[in-house]
């Protein structure tokens, strides 16, 4: 069933279509939510809330681009709102005006598995993690990130530079061969 027909069936309230919509997009969206949060439980909470909004606002979709992209945007904003409202993340979602950091020129080769890379990103502080996900993974521009998070464009650039620097450093460390001590 193509996206258009699937949406129509869901709007008619057909449970089978609603389940099919969930099955089609739950796995990739869970990965999105996982990257923004610090635990699987939090990721599932965001996924659940996001899909509820998808079904609630589905009548407003109106074929604006791909259905997957539309759902992904809802998941991202749901994740950001979750971080802002959740007490565990609130204190770390403060984006202070720091000294501008230059974006490092290094482009290390990523030899990690997808999950390992995602776990490295999740090791960043929530602020860095969010900005890195929005810029590097979702493809938002710094002005857009600034309006989404309520920060200035310059702050977004600075925070991203710092996050990228940390991440590339960790990736390079992971890329280095492990020192193996041979017994004599």
């Amino acid at each position, binding site marked *: 069933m193509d996206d258009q027909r699937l949406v129509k069936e869901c709007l008619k309230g057909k449970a089978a279509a609603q389940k099919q919509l969930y099955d089609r997009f739950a796995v*990739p969206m869970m990965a999105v939510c996982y990257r923004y949060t610090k635990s699987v439980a939090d990721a599932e909470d965001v996924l659940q809330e996001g899909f509820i909004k998808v079904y609630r606002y589905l009548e407003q979709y109106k074929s604006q681009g791909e259905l997957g992209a*539309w759902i992904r945007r809802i998941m991202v904003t749901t994740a950001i709102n979750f971080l802002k409202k959740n007490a565990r993340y609130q204190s770390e979602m403060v984006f202070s005006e720091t000294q501008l950091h230059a974006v490092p020129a290094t482009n290390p080769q990523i030899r990690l598995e997808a999950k390992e890379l995602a776990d490295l990103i999740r090791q960043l502080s929530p602020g860095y993690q969010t900005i890195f996900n929005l810029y590097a993974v979702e493809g938002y521009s710094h002005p857009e990130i600034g309006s989404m998070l309520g920060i200035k464009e310059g702050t977004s650039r600075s925070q991203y530079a710092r996050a990228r620097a940390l991440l590339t450093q960790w990736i390079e460390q992971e890329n280095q061969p492990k020192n193996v001590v041979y017994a004599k």
Partner: protein
Amino acid sequence: MQNEFEKQVQKKLEELKLHPSAPVWQNIKKEIAPGKDRKRILFWLLLGAVVTTAGFYLLEMTPAAKMVSANKQGFSPARHPGTNTIVKPQPAPTRRTGDTTDRVVLPAAPARNSTGAWQHTAVTKERLSTDVSVSTMPPPEVQNFGALNTRRKADDPPIGIPARKASSAEDASGKNRTGNSVHPKPAEAAPQPGDSATTLLADSAIAVRKVQDELLEQDSLATPAGQRKTRKLIAVIHASIGRSKLASGLALFDKNFADYFSAPGSSSGFPPSNGLPPAGAKPGLSFGAGLSVKKTLNRHLSFSGGLDYNFYSTRISTGQRIWNDTVITSGYGSVPLRSYYQNTNATGHSYANKFHFISLPLRLEYKISDRIPLSITAGISLQQLVSTNALIYHSTGQFYYQDKKAFQKSQLFSEFGISYGCRRFSLGPSLQYGLTKTMRQGNGNKHLFTAGLKAGFVLNK
């Protein structure tokens, strides 16, 4: 501009597949199930029940219903033994001049017919002389006053039909005083052709007596006091007009309060803001109308419930309306838009944020004193937002947009008022304050507040 590193990250993370646990879908299914509309259905069912009940009470108290209940109870004057029925004095009989003498022949003693009903016979006139004359004397309505002094028994003949009594002009033998035989009286049973006027009068008098008899028969069933049932349920229609605004918590008159609707900001793909703060909203027109049923609890206190329509509004100043199909994201999630309004900080067009509510009010009214018709009213009302065009300010993108889902559909309001009553009318100031926040979620503690004048008219005092 993304470089190779970002592209690698994107490509790598596209391979990431994570499966959510089973309870996630179960929870989603529960949320999107039709049962979520149950609250709305229950609200309208309750509303329908209240309106139907109010309608029944109103019908019960209509004048037609009053008359029927009064007839059932039997309206009649109180009867006590020993009183006489009021008798309309009969005009004196007129006699024609001459040698003719008219004699009133009283009807024979009434008898029961085969069905057991009393037979009424007409009063006739017999001419004692050869001249024919017509008596204008109407048949007597009551002849035997003595019979009325005793309580009428069920088996007694209907009052008004006197027992046959030999007149002074007639002796037991049937002869009159002059010794002349009394002519046979076929007319006693049937009216004579010449006596049509008398017959008509007699018939009408008998008809009147019949009605009186029926009422008197019901007299024994009448309520001892013969009182009218006092009305305890009163229907009132009322209307109000005033001004409404947003209030921050209980700070109803805080001039520094930024009284506009705002959403937690986030935007995607919108043009950069112009840096202007939004203009505050100004109070707008509010009015309401409704019907309520009031029950008197005691001399001072009464309780009422009903159905109202309420309209609130605030005024803001917006810039140009931009038509552009897009999706914005905010604290309420993704909202697709067909258009939005620019922010020009009070130098643009005036826009009215309108709210239409249907409400179920419950009020207690306390009458201060019997001498002064002044009452204090306090109550609460459950109000359901049926329609709104209110704009929400997107603080990050700095524009105004519509999102009806951002507002609380069911809101609880408190009411307070003072009214001065004059006959069926009442008039006085009234306040309403929204105990529930106007918006579902978002920054600010915003409540609708209205103040104005309220007038009432009692429908069935």
